[in-house]
């Protein structure tokens, strides 16, 4: 990259105590279903009551994490707002589908329809912060947050923005959890996050969250060195691409001292993580972040947040994030302290 990009601030709403205070990842217990629910913060300090009254859960989570990220970065108006979401506000989409049926297409409340639109969080952030510049939303499973990240890097490289608010958010409803269970997304038996990686079964544990970053040119403790996406690679292509990616970044595999990996215990797709790990020295420290946030379209944002926390702690120098979503959308991100 011609212009260096730094992570200037971040904020995460996740199943963990990640929003405020010191973060120590916990292997949370599950009792009912394979779903890690996000811990919602109080919204009152972020969103005016007159706006809050209409908002559904994902909109509140998205907007609040975006605002907290700006606060953490002592920023008010970013140069662009770019997000990714795989499903948008599921709660609103479901409500509108049910309303259409219940009221037989008459006298429908418009609010769920409006809020089901994928770019509604972006619009709310822009509205509340009066940010009139570039605004975009990607909606493509494991390439949602990731393309938002690439778009952000491009905005900075083009000189169009000095700082970009970049985020990824998704929620999981009980209804959608059931829907996805019908095509094998989740493990069939209740599986604890502590056991999910070793369970030897298909599927994984669902999750949700909303994570934002302020990415900009002003130097800070964590540099975003580069990223690469691969669509449906073979294991051979994955291995070759990772080797090539590191070479392009001028980083020897031995220099990587942390691998943050999206391994989720799904026996159908975990072999990709084995392939990536083989490119790196066996001694590299590994964090499998989906034990903490569960699997969802934009979990990669929580992965990058995990990398950022680790680099800020001073324990590591050069970290690689590798994540894929059900074997189809694969992404490497290289970050350095």
């Amino acid at each position, binding site marked *: 990259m011609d212009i260096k990009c730094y992570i200037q601030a971040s904020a995460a709403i996740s199943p963990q105590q990640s929003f405020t205070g010191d973060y120590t990842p916990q292997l949370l217990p599950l009792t009912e279903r394979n779903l890690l629910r996000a811990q919602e913060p109080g919204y009152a300090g972020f969103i005016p*009551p*007159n706006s809050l*009254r*209409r908002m559904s859960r994902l909109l509140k989570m998205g907007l609040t994490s975006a605002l907290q990220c700006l606060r953490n970065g002592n920023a008010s108006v970013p140069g662009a707002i770019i997000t990714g979401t795989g499903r948008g506000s599921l709660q609103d989409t479901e409500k509108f589908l049910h309303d259409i049926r219940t*009221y037989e297409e*008459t*006298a*429908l*409340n*418009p*609010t769920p329809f*409006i809020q089901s639109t994928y770019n509604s969080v972006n619009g709310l952030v822009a509205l509340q912060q009066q940010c009139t510049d570039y605004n975009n939303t990607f909606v493509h499973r494991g390439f949602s947050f990731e393309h938002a990240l690439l778009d952000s890097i491009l905005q900075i490289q083009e000189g169009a923005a000095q700082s970009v608010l970049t985020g990824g958010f998704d929620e999981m409803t009980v209804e959608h959890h059931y829907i996805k269970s019908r095509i094998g997304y989740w493990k069939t038996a209740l599986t604890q996050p502590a056991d999910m990686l070793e369970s030897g079964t298909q599927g994984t544990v669902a999750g949700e969250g909303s994570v934002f970053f302020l990415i900009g040119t002003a130097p800070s403790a964590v540099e975003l060195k580069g990223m690469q996406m691969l669509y449906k690679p073979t294991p051979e292509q994955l291995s070759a691409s990772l080797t090539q990616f590191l070479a392009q970044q001028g980083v020897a595999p031995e220099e990587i001292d942390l691998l943050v990996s999206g391994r989720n215990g799904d026996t159908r797709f975990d072999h990709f993580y084995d392939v990536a790990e083989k490119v790196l020295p066996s001694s590299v420290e590994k964090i499998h972040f989906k034990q903490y946030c569960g699997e969802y379209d934009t979990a990669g944002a929580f992965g990058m947040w995990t990398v950022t926390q680790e680099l800020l702690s001073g324990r590591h120098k050069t970290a690689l994030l590798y994540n894929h979503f059900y074997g189809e959308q694969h992404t490497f991100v290289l970050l350095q302290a």
Partner: protein
Amino acid sequence: MEALKLKLKQQIIEALNLQDTKPEDIDDNAPLFGEGLGLDSIDSLELMVLLERSYKIKVEDPREGRKILQSVQTMAEFIMSKQAA
């Protein structure tokens, strides 16, 4: 009329999730939009849904809607006139 207005206020509070507002906080003649309760065009659509579901009154034209939804008083008068018709 008074009973209708009280009921309308309760329904407005519920439909629009006006959590800290009580029926007695809403003046019969106070404007619902802009100043006053601070409602906007999406709220006006929500109130038209309320009229249709609870009073079986369909407002097709948003411009007509704006006149009816000026205040609780105008809403109540409109409902009475429709029910009398």
